[in-house]
């Protein structure tokens, strides 16, 4: 029984992963067909529309959450470290934590909820009303036409949003350092710059790109495979949000373990 259940889950998991990879491959192939006819792979207007929604629309939420998270972390770690007289470590700690880990993760979770849900609901509605099929039947390539601009916008915007998240968190930290720990602005900046190393920045950005791909692919796939009318769209959207958030966290954990255990840093 248990083994059967596990087998079932493993199979579903592998099927989903391979479907996602095929979605990506088919999308690229459709884009290739279109480009080979001397055209842009997708409409600029759709790309900018999606970019505006995913990017600009997410800035306030990402910044606010990161700001308060940075602030709280600084406060909590600061009080602990003060007992050893080492509260000067706080800026560096938060810097490393956010650039390398929390920035991409928080942004990933927020975008999974906000944009993942939107992509799934939108494409799901288009699927049940046969709009996606009509696009396919016209020979326009639905993956190229619908998925590509969304995915590209999301992937390109993730790093920018992560940078904002990191800066917002550092701003929160700065405020706490000023108020509670007597670290001057100049001093704060030095401590941050000391802690900030290129490798962490690159790693964080790479992660954010990967999360963008994961969120976009799962959300679009969930939307395109909706069955069963309006209720189906609702179910798919909920499932898509849960799946994207858990996948982002799971992949993040996996990458951290890989980094610490295999690469030893």
């Amino acid at each position, binding site marked *: 029984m248990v083994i059967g259940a596990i087998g079932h889950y493993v199979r579903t998991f592998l099927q989903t992963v391979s479907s996602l990879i095929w979605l990506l491959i088919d999308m690229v192939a459709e884009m290739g*067909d279109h480009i080979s006819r001397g055209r842009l792979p997708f409409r600029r207007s759709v790309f900018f529309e999606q970019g505006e929604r995913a990017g600009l629309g997410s800035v306030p939420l990402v910044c606010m959450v990161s700001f308060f998270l940075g602030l709280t972390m600084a406060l909590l770690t600061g009080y602990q470290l003060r007992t050893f007289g080492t509260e000067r470590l706080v800026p560096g700690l938060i810097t490393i934590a956010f650039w390398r880990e929390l920035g991409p993760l928080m942004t990933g979770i927020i975008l999974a909820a906000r944009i993942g849900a939107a992509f799934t609901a939108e494409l799901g509605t*288009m699927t049940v009303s*046969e709009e996606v099929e009509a696009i*396919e*039947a*016209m*020979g326009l390539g639905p993956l190229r036409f619908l998925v590509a601009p969304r995915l590209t916008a999301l992937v390109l915007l993730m790093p920018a949003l992560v940078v904002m998240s990191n800066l917002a968190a550092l701003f929160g930290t700065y405020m706490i350092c000023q108020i509670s720990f007597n670290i001057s602005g100049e001093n704060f900046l030095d401590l941050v710059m000391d802690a900030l190393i290129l490798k962490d920045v690159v790693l964080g950005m790479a992660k954010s790109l990967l999360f963008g791909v994961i969120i976009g692919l799962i959300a679009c796939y969930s939307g395109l495979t909706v069955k069963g009318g309006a209720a189906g769209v609702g179910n798919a959207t909920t499932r898509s949000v849960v799946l994207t958030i858990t996948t982002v966290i799971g992949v993040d954990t996996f990458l951290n373990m890989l980094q610490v255990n295999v690469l030893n840093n």
Partner: protein
Amino acid sequence: MAAASPSPSATRRDAAPDDDRPLVQIEEVVLRFGSKTVLDGISFTVDRGDRLVVMGQSGGGKSTLLRLVIGILKPTSGRVLFAGTDIARLSRRQLNAMRARLGMVYQYSALISSLNVRDNLALPLEELTEKSTAEIDELIRARLAAVDMSGSEDKMPSELSGGMRKRIGLARALMLEPELILYDEPSAGLDPVTSSVIDELIIDTSARTKSSAIIVTHEMESAFRIATRMVMLYQGKIIADDTPEKFRNSDNEVVAQFVSGSTQGPIGEAAHERT
């Protein structure tokens, strides 16, 4: 490409070498969804210039049949040929090129809800042709006039009634001057006058552009008005394939019952047996 013989086919719109072959050939097609057999070994052909009406019960697989022709679904077994080539063997690019030669009018219109009428109609032209915006707008005006929807360019699909949407869907299918147009219940849900207008439009279009059509419909009157040939799909099989005149006087019980719309006959009985 010298095969264009001096037969009548040479005078047709584009005298391709495959002109003498039927435009569409369905060969022994079986289609199953899971364990459910929707189409159970059907064969028929559509010649150039034909207007083939497909009749059958609700849920009988008519929309599914159209999806097979346009390559959205693949048959479980059997072949679907368009202009002589098996569409299951086409590459993605070839399939899309073929689809540009086909137009599909959806049962529920399937207009892109985020685009206004103008952009919906412009979509295939903008994506697949090199036409200028001015040419496209000119074409759209003409098509909208043909379906009696002039001046609705800026409306969103949600602002239109079902019948209006249907007419826009029809206009969209005609934008690329397809060789074959697939109509899924084009006049269902329309008032009798609009329904006749649509029928006229279907006949006109096929005569003017020398295109063929497959029309799925339940409306007997419009079926007989439009059809040059009719097939009847019943329990996954083609049980009749004939001219409208022969169809009207068919001695096949199922066909006769369907044409007369009577409740007495094999169709009702079969439905009762299944429930």
